[in-house]
């Protein structure tokens, strides 16, 4: 599966993290991505490791696991994985295992940080997504 630039743009636009980025900026984001594949059963993110990239899943399904708790979530096509540790520079909080063969777009930390530092529109839209996500988790708090 080799994704064209326009297919990458559609994939990125469908993901929560990138959905607010203006269309004219999206092509530059798409061009930063490398296409990667992982086999079923492959553990491609290990909790505790330094976060050096994020992934946008193009096809397949993954399991997100936290030590001591087992599987905490599933990831599927369109989901972004690993963005938190490359933005916050903290170690990976969870591990990720391919439940099926998967294809993903990979953006390295260096490229992602450069993109954000050079492009306010991209950064502001990601900021808005992160703040909304934080607000959603606050709404779920119980007394």
């Amino acid at each position, binding site marked *: 599966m080799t994704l064209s630039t326009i297919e990458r743009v559609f994939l990125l636009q469908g993901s929560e993290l990138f959905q607010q980025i203006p269309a004219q900026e999206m092509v530059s984001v798409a061009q930063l991505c490398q296409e990667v594949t992982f086999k079923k059963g492959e553990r491609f993110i290990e909790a505790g490791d330094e976060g050096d990239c994020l992934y946008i899943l193009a096809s397949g399904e993954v399991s997100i696991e936290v030590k001591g*708790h087992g599987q905490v979530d599933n990831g599927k096509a369109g989901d972004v994985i690993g963005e*938190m540790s490359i*933005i*916050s*520079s*903290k170690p990976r*909080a969870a591990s990720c295992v391919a439940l099926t063969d998967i294809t993903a777009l990979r953006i390295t930390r260096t490229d992602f*940080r450069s993109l*954000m*530092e*050079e*492009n*306010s529109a*991209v*950064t*502001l839209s*990601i*900021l*808005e997504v*992160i*703040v*909304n*996500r*934080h*607000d959603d*988790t*606050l709404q*779920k*708090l*119980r*007394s």
Partner: protein
Amino acid sequence: MNDTTTLDKSPFLRLAFQGLDDDELQEIAGLTEFNTYPPDHILCYEGAIEDVFYILAEGNVIISKKVGEDKTERVLRVGEKGDIIGEMSMIQNLPRSATVRTTTECTVLEMERQDFEAILSRNPRMAIDIIRITLDRMRSNDKTMIEDLQKSNKILRQLDRNKLEFIQVAAHELRTPLTVLKGYVNVLRSFAGSDTNASLGDVIQGIFKGTERITEVVNLMLDVTRIDSDTLKAASVPVSLKHVIEDLVKKDLGKAIAERKIKIVLEHPEEAPYFKGDPGLIQKALYQLIVNAVKYTPNTGTVTVSTHITTMDNDIPCVEIAVKDQGIGLDTEHHELIFEKFYQVGGVELHSSGKTTFKGGGPGLGLAIVRGVARAHGGKVWVESAGHDEEKFHGSTFYLQLPLQETKSLEQKA
């Protein structure tokens, strides 16, 4: 901090925005003003639309939010020197999502909304810093939520253990007087007068039936305490499912099924599933499934019990028993919960109207027993139903899968 007029803003801004250089911090400093507030002053009101962004220079604040159905005020975090406050609502263009109150005298750097929006749009590194701060807060919240959940789980597990212990004690306490009662009823039945006196005979029969029903409920309670414990071990002996099901339908439940005029259809493959398991436990599980099907099917309806060989999700060969009724059906929200002890759909019936009376009440333990038996064998149980409807009677189908250890039929073994 009494005199802020000549104070350098940079140290506080550097604490807040660790990724910015001196020039960027100077630019922000130019857009902020110092202000000092006494303790117990509200900087932000939850739900209000406010146009100020704060950087805490000195002092402490509490950030709290109304949560839950009863809107209890819950402290989210304590803000201290270097914290930024009020940025979320301005980025989202929404009212404040939390209340911020000073707990000590506080000195803050304040920035108006239009300046905040302007500098954010031309300085992506400031936005990156705010993203980093927000993600740190989210991690901290996640940690708090996990700890809260773990505490709640611990309490729930203890309550569940308490419940089981109570059921066990109650069941044993009831068993002793029941044994005495049954003994006396049998003595009464043997008196000469009980045969000839119709009224006396009816009374004795009524007491006998009532005693039998209480015995069934007490046995159910004891079953659930045994089956629900982690120590339950299922035996592994040859079991003929076909015979177990036929005995249940014709002998144990035959009379009740006939009274309700329910048609029972049995479907077994020619090579009848014959596998290794615990015959006592399997008989209990199938009994509960068939009783349930009969209970929720109106008179003259049909209950179909079928078995066939298939594989479970992890490709392990298994026998699947399906009990399909033409009853009132079950809404999706109950599909998982009905296997919990005491869970009842709809109002709890406060009288026992008999185990197979249409929609009759019960203690709500039968399906918990089925699940316990499934788990003891390494299998699973679930239900499929289009939903509750007492006009169209969609019905429900309960599936019980039990892993196979051998698949030879009884005929082949013979």
